[in-house]
């Protein structure tokens, strides 16, 4: 297995750094249902880390633990060398973790531009009064933030829909707008919950390109959940495989592909 203790160099020559986030023996229960059972893995700086598994394996729950939406009953989340206390999602966001959702959560009536601007909330400090009279700090901040947002719009090639209300956009584009909003927060870790679900081949190719570009251009660490095995194997540096709340595999795509437990989970064997 690939030794990743000190960071590593990927096949295509990207340098992956040390551990930024570590999950230690996480267990998450909803009443009697165990969604995640004693899972540990790490996420390294600059890598694309995928979490895969069959339906109901607990992938989204895992992502929600990372994003602070769920607090696990047992186990610890370590972030940048410190144990993370129980947090609200907005506190996690402040730490530089942004996400997209499986079933798009945008403001349908607002334009693409306004939606992406909401991603900059964290960078706005002007007070209510200043915002209301639109002088000094508020105005300056708006200009700065708009500039940052325009760079992202350019990056994701959504200039032509800048002023279009999100509700009028097709699904594939909405997904891209959601990615734009997450990027607007300038996250150090980006969580993508099924970024390619429901897309056609061309849209998937575009999206894959953008995920790689984001990682390459901004050095963002990316954690993604995805169903499409082809996409996962092509994109990610390391993969965690879950099944029934347990971790059954962890390693590079090649290693995971050869793992007997993973093959069984996907092709199906009788569970007892």
């Amino acid at each position, binding site marked *: 297995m690939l030794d990743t203790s000190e960071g590593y160099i990927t096949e295509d020559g990207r340098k992956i750094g040390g551990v930024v986030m570590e999950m230690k023996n996480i267990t998450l229960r909803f009443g009697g249902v165990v969604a995640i059972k004693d899972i540990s893995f790490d996420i390294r700086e600059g890598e694309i880390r995928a979490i895969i598994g069959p339906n109901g394996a607990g992938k989204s729950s895992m992502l929600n633990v990372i994003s602070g939406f769920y607090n696990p009953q047992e186990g610890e989340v370590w972030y940048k060398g410190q144990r993370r206390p129980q947090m609200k999602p907005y506190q996690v966001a402040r730490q530089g973790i942004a996400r997209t959702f499986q079933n798009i959560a945008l403001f349908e009536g607002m334009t693409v531009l306004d939606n992406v601007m909401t991603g900059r909330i964290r960078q706005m400090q002007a007070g209510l009064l200043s915002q209301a009279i639109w002088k000094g700090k508020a105005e300056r901040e708006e200009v700065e933030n708009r500039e940052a947002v325009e760079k992202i*719009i350019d990056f994701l090639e959504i200039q032509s829909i800048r002023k279009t209300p999100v509700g009028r956009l097709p699904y594939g584009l909405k997904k891209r707008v959601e990615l734009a909003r997450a990027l607007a927060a300038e996250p150090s870790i980006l969580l993508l919950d099924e970024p390619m679900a429901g897309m056609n081949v061309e849209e998937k190719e575009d999206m894959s390109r953008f995920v790689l570009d984001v990682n390459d251009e901004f050095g963002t660490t990316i954690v993604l959940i995805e169903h499409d095995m082809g996409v996962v194997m092509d994109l990610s540096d390391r993969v965690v495989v879950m099944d029934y709340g347990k971790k059954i595999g962890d390693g590079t795509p090649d290693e995971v592909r050869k793992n007997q437990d993973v093959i069984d989970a996907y092709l199906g064997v009788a569970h007892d």
Partner: protein
Amino acid sequence: MGTSSQAADGFQSIPALLQRNASQFANRPAYREKEFGIWQCWTWAETEKEIEAFALGLLNLGVNEGDFIAIAGRNRPYFYWAMVAAQSVGAIPVPVYQDSAAEEMAYVLEHCGARFAVVEDQEQVDKIIDIQDKLHQFEHMIYVDPRGLRKYDHHKLHQYSHVQEQGRAAREEFIEDLKARRGKLEYASTCVMLYTSGTTGKPKGVVLSNRNIIEASKSSAEFDHLHRGEEVLAYLPMAWVGDFIFSIGQAYWCGFCVNCPESADTMQTDLREIGPTYYFAPPRVFETQLTNVMIRMEDAGRLKQRMFHYFMDHARRVGPAILDGKPVSGWDRFKYWLGNLCVYGPLKDTMGFGRVRVGYTAGEAIGPEIFDFYRSLGINLKQLYGQTEASVFITLQPDGEVRSDTVGVAAPGVEIRIAENGEVYYRSPGVFEEYYKNAESTASTKDAEGWVATGDAGFFEEGSGHLRIIDRAKDVGKMADGRMFAPKYVENKLKFFPNILEAVVFGNGRKECTAFINIDLTAVGNWAERNNIGYASYQELAGHPRVLETIKSHVEEVNRSLADDPMLAHCQVHRFLVLHKELDADDGEMTRTRKVRRGVIGEKFEDLVMALYDGSDEISTRTEVTYEDGRKGYISATLKIIEAEVVPVDSHEKVAAE
């Protein structure tokens, strides 16, 4: 300014015109590009600095005089600068279509032996890396957009801005060399080499000198009184001669501003924001825009619809006359003024034509209804007839003499003669130097006295003296009984229907004419939506019985109108089929400028052509398609062959017409 003849003596190259503009119009805008949501602007003085920096950078990379530099990207100031910078160091820019497939690009780069290429982004870089093994002389590649390219081997790959920085840093070292090379440019030196799309065979490299470009730009600018205050939107492919003339030739001659859109998809918004005063578009663009307006009007409220139709009827009646300065009654003028306030003005503004003073269309025939629609709104839309080999201009329509069925009178400085077989020949200062490395084709196209064969058949109309083009001379054939067969003429008539995107008519050497038809997905799709007709794919819609019914009625209408024309009554379409796929340049069925490649289509769909003549009423077929990334796939379909009603004509009388 720029209309006097003084310039020709002093300014013998584009870089020389740049120097003039940088001193005379230093603070006037030369380029604008929308980026990050804002129109960024460069004045002529700034432009000169940018171009100089890039030229110095090219010297630094070792560009020699006479080298070819390929340019591949969408319309952005950087590429226009790269072209002028290349000229400044004595190299020759070769713009190529950025959407061309790798093999097409390989052919062009190999043929001219390009040592350098300036390209837009990763997509183009990847494409050239793929074909690099075939290119023996190729050395360095320069890209504008660094995204995704960070990890690439940068030994022979450079970022545009870095080349400029290195150029600025090495100014001391190279500036004298640059000045010397710039000083050597004269009227006879090569200005640009453009590859013609070629409806048959391999593309040919058309060498155009400074004389060609500057003379053509100068006389056409005078013809339409263009001045430095014009605004143009550069959105047509840079590899096309028209864009070179409008965005470089005329822009540098007159000193006007070239605006580059943010991306290909935002063109409509950008057009509206800029409001160009001088505008060029192929008929297809006008057609699409009109179709969109009509579709949107269908969704408008009652009152608006009635107002629109009422005033549009009025405009159709008196608009063109008002535009041409013909006498129109005071009451009609008042109504037109009112219409302008309520309908025409806002409509023109929405379409981005609010300020158009001179608009041109060319390349294909334009439907009379479409042409009249724009003219009746008060947009001075005219036609021109041109070729790459002529530095665009052969004929132009003067203000006040505009019609949809002619292409106008000889452009200033152009002589035209019609050969015995009907082919149009011309001679002008804009006539190209040669086809690069192809003396044979040069000799067969251009004779010793400088007359160039256009390959189009046409005639001068009696009375008005305007030129009318019938068809490509080589496409004009004979039917089995020896009468003239002019496919394009019939195809154009078919294409004037919004539902028909493309048509290919067969009949050379046969007894009857038949046709392939492509439906227009926008128009037919909208119709289907409004009539509750469900369809899952292009193919399904194209085969829908009611669509076939509609197309049949269009074909029959064309037949009726053909029957009235004694020269072409026998070209009526007897049978047709609606194709299951759109004809596409990626499949080689059309050129990149969207002209039908008759030969390729005839071969590729041989089974379908056979079926049109052997009396079958349907045919199953399997067709290879090429996706944008070069992969191939197949689609199969069963197509109905439909008989169209023809108007009987008395054939014996008409034989003489041939």
